[in-house]
């Protein structure tokens, strides 16, 4: 076991409703690294994150966290019931009250400095995700876990969000583990990619994984299979490319 790891799993097996969803997972997350988790639907990506935060008990093996590890978690989706009135500012104070300066700084870091007094239910998808990010930053995490955080955002929106994550990492120096719903878009800043399909099929630097036979077997070859590495210069909007890209995904 890597002694410096923030969180490690060994022989981890997770069962959901008596069905094994993940098995033989051995990973170590080192301080400050960005790890992207990709895999087909139902491959156990979200389950892995939930196991890391302790929401699911392993059927076998274990998850070991460094003592006192501060975790920031951005869930896949968060439906706030219309019956629950909630301002952004109040949301940030859950479950621990925080002072206004801390709240303002977290909103600033997440790129939404002026949203404090707004109702959560009135936010756009992108704003909502950023508020979730701000809340995760509240506890000054050493490990930031994001579950398909760009789901429902358009391409420029996701690009901007990824940029924000890089910035946050630079500022806080936290490790980032993110599940990507878009198999083809993996942050260029990723130090490692974990390709998951019920177990870890392959892992390594983004370029390594893109050319790994296991990855190709899962996601096909050619342009569809290649990891489209998101880079800053590509983040502005190309309406035509954008539409084109979408057609491609549907046929994939």
């Amino acid at each position, binding site marked *: 076991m890597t002694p410096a790891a923030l969180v490690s799993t060994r022989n981890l097996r997770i069962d959901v409703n008596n069905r094994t969803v993940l098995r033989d997972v051995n990973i170590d997350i080192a301080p400050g690294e960005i790890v992207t988790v990709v895999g087909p639907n139902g491959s156990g990506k979200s389950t892995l994150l939930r196991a890391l935060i302790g*929401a699911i008990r392993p059927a076998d093996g274990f998850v070991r966290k460094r003592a006192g590890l501060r975790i920031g978690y951005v869930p896949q989706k968060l439906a706030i019931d219309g019956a*629950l*009135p*909630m301002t952004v500012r109040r*949301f940030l104070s859950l*479950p621990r*009250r925080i002072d206004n300066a801390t709240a303002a700084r977290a909103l600033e870091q997440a790129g939404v400095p002026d949203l404090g007094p707004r109702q959560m239910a009135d936010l756009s998808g992108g704003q909502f995700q950023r508020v979730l990010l701000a809340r995760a930053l509240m*506890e000054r995490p050493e490990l930031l876990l994001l579950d398909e955080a760009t789901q429902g955002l358009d391409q420029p929106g996701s690009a901007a969000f990824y940029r924000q994550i890089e910035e946050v990492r630079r500022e806080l120096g936290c490790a980032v583990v993110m599940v990507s719903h878009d198999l083809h878009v993996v942050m260029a800043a990723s130090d490692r990619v974990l390709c998951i399909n019920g177990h870890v099929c392959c892992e390594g630097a983004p370029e390594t994984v893109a050319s790994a036979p296991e990855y190709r077997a899962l996601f096909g070859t050619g342009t569809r299979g290649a990891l489209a590495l998101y880079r800053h210069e590509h983040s502005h909007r190309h309406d035509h490319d954008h539409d084109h890209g979408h057609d491609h995904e549907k046929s994939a």
Partner: protein
Amino acid sequence: MLDDFLIRAALAGLGVALAAAPLGCFVVWRRMAYFGEATAHAAILGVALALSLSLPVLPMILTAALIMASAVSALTGRGYAMDTVLGVMAHSALAIGLVAVALMADVRLDLMAFLFGDILAVTRSDLLVIWAGAALVLTLMSWRWSALLAATLNPDLARASGVNPRREEFAMTLALAIVVAVAIKVVGVLLIAALLVIPAAAARPLVRTPEAMAVGATLIGMGSVLGGLWGALMLDTPTGPSIVCVAAFLFSAATAAGALLRKS
């Protein structure tokens, strides 16, 4: 002063409203209206048990309510849909309780008082029980408030910040059982859920934070109790249903006011 039955009735009603309102907010937020209903119906089973075993009524009501709440949680965890489980459990508990009471031929029991409450017959010791229960529930709710709110929003999110959602759920179940036990005398088994849900729902359009909603629900609940009591006295109508009628009226008024507020 406490000799006057009207004063006692008002104090009993206010005590119940005080405990039911903040808890009712969580019942609304977590979409547990029928959970409250089922727990309340289980109370009649508790009454039947207490009578047949010659045990004190209050602890048996508490026990039955807790067992019901735990059974519903356990069953929904096993893949049954929540509303199906509640439909089965709530009505079975009520029916079995009523049949059990009827079978005890030697016991004379004012069933109507348990079903619809008898706030005008509240005694001093009832008052003590109601206010002790209300104090307990309020203490529990304010102690667990933030953690419970986080768990209500999203269990995983709560877990990541070190809150155990199951523990918070249990705190809430406990509070619900206590409210049912103390509210039975005031509004009866059939209308307890109304006192939980209606004031909270009425406060919703007027507020922007969870805390404001709890305070609003408390005020509306207390207003309903006093208004209902006064109306029942003026019109010679049953008190429990009169209280709920006033709450329903306040709900409509608040909804209309909320719509006007948003337009302006």
